[in-house]
């Protein structure tokens, strides 16, 4: 009889090809997603070494980081910045030369890699998936071991060998139980967790999210939770597959069919953590205490419930924390103890691999329906398929009628590598994952929150408790 094992342990051990004396293990990569950011370094080096791709069909290149979200109909000529255009073109060239399937800028399914992997049914329970992007844990919501890799050496290694050397992380179960209060979303769950354990709180761990709150989340909500694992320091974040997962996958393009589906389902049902499996660390949260969250600082842990205030550094005993808060407030141009609801904003952004799926757009549209925004902003759906669905539901009209721009899909203003930036000194309410200094552009002031909260901020021109709008 084998000892009870966790979801992570089952999937990890099934992928070990070789154990090295140095403590790293050679893991088999079932599937690798590639974006254009820095990946050309890997391909340039492979080319100089005369190496080729070992299993090209187990890769999918996706153009998402550098692609502008406007003027797609004009092709690469619609990308005015020559350096950005060049990076997009290099992905086209590298994918072709290394014979890697590619969803490029003109593909019908173009979108953000972490949105389209699940959408196409590629992200299936029990798989090990890598991507040269720090938010690869997103796929963990499907019961996948999703791991970020470096865009240079590690990507080059995965392309050449279909394997990666990794040191096995410890295990950490974060259980969240209870019903969710009104207007509290998956984004608020994960921000509450990060606020509690800190941006280094899960460093060195593979996190499994469990508990009744997580079970009751839709797949969209689960993607949001797993997506921000890295903001708590964890490269891996996962949720045991269940009927919600299987229903989501059923019928998708790359999902198994017929007798394969039955076999796959039987296999998937063995993956969740066994009763009695032990984790290196465990924490539990009561979701009935959660509230809509807003960031006030320059790190994702710098956030508070919308009913709260900006912290006063002079009341913080810990010297290091006090200095951090002082620096954060100076950068964010905020005063100690001011109410979060008093903070006026200049712009909003709805999008990114964290919050750009259909449910996110519906949540924002519910708030904006029949209202006008007070500040400019844009909505970038997570994929072209999400865009089509939103348009079929009339969500695009709600956004446009409210005064927001309805854009194409891409990473866009989350980090601005496609040139879509928040201007210096501008304050942006954003559904993205990082509020680092300069993340959305040099001198940009970012407040991260859920899509309905961003919509509420857009309406009032200041950070707003969305419940005031929805309860009217």
């Amino acid at each position, binding site marked *: 009889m084998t000892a009870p094992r966790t979801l992570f342990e089952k999937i990890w051990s099934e992928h070990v090809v070789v154990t090295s004396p140095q403590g790293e293990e050679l893991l088999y990569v079932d599937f690798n997603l590639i974006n254009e950011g820095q990946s050309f370094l890997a391909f340039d*080096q492979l080319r100089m070494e005369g190496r080729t791709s070992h299993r090209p069909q187990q890769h999918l290149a996706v153009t998402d980081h550098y692609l502008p979200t406007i003027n797609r109909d004009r092709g690469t000529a619609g990308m005015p910045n020559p350096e950005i255009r060049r990076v997009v073109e290099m992905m086209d060239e590298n994918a072709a030369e290394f014979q890697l399937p590619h969803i490029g800028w003109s593909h019908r*399914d173009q979108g953000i890699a972490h949105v389209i992997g699940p959408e196409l049914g590629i992200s299936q329970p029990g798989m090990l998936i890598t991507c040269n992007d720090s938010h690869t844990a997103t796929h963990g919501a499907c019961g996948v071991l999703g791991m970020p890799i470096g865009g240079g050496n590690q990507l080059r290694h995965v392309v050449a060998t279909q394997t990666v050397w990794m040191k096995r992380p410890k295990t950490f179960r974060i259980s969240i139980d209870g019903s969710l209060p009104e207007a509290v979303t998956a984004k608020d769950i994960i921000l509450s967790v990060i606020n509690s354990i800190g941006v280094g709180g899960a460093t060195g761990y593979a996190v499994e999210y469990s508990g009744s709150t997580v079970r009751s989340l839709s797949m969209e909500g689960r993607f949001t939770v797993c997506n921000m694992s890295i903001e708590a320091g964890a490269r891996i974040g996962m949720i045991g597959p269940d009927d919600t997962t299987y229903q989501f996958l059923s019928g998708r393009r790359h999902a198994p069919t017929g007798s394969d589906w039955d076999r796959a389902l039987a296999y998937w049902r063995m993956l969740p953590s066994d009763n009695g499996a032990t984790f290196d660390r465990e924490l539990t949260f009561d979701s009935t205490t959660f509230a809509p969250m807003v960031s006030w600082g320059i790190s994702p842990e710098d956030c508070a419930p919308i009913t709260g205030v900006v912290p006063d550094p002079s009341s913080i005993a810990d010297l290091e924390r006090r200095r951090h808060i002082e620096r954060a407030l100076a950068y964010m141009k905020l005063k100690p103890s001011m109410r979060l609801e008093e903070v006026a904003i200049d712009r909003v952004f709805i999008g990114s691999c964290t919050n750009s799926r259909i449910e996110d757009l519906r949540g924002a549209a519910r708030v904006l329906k029949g209202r006008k925004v007070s500040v400019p902003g844009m909505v970038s759906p997570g994929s072209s398929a999400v865009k089509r669905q939103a348009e079929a539901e009339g969500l695009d009209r709600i956004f446009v009628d409210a005064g927001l721009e309805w854009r194409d899909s891409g990473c866009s203003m989350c980090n601005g590598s496609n040139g879509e930036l928040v201007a210096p000194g501008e304050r942006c309410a954003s559904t993205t994952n990082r509020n680092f200094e300069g993340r959305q552009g040099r001198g940009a002031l970012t407040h991260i929150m859920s899509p309905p909260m961003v919509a509420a901020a857009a309406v009032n021109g200041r950070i707003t408790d969305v419940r005031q709008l929805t309860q009217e």
Partner: protein
Amino acid sequence: MQPFTVLTAVAAPLPIAKIDTGMILPGRFMRRHRRPDHDYGEAFLYYLRFDEKGQPRPDFPINQPAYKDAKILVTDSDFGCGSSREGAAFAVMDFGLKALVGPSFADIFQGNCIQNGIPVITLPEAAIHDMWRQLRAKPGAEMTIDLPSQVVVAPNGARHSFDISPLRKERLIRGIDDIDVTLEYRAAIDRFEIKRKALLPWLPSAHRP
């Protein structure tokens, strides 16, 4: 990748602390293809080596004729700090350097250099300062790096032993990178793939994205 054993070559002093990866490979070069005839050699320390008009700064150490054939750079502390951009190691390599010696190096940068066959050797500050003095007194002087014996020989013949992990040392001496190491397990990977395909035949493959 070239094996590295014993190298005797011209060494250049670079007594500037905290040269970060953005100085080693300025951002404007990062969005360009790296090809054998158009590599990152030009980009290496570009804004330190060239002025605003693109003219070489004559006073910058490695611009001087005596260091034209330098293959060893004797750096100051924290060389390679800053972002993890992997292109910085390529710039070092493409410039023609074969080894770096200094008081301290950033971790990730060090790993990236070794991955590309360039030993990055840490020695005490006093020894480094002594080497700078000798190299400036006699521009174009040679030094020796004996990796198997783990010794750096200064221009005046002084021998300085250094530490390196056995794994990294072996990779450098054999001239293998992590892909070469992995390919020694080729048979195990092949067996794994056959077994996995038989057990989970439904796993996705993307020939129709």
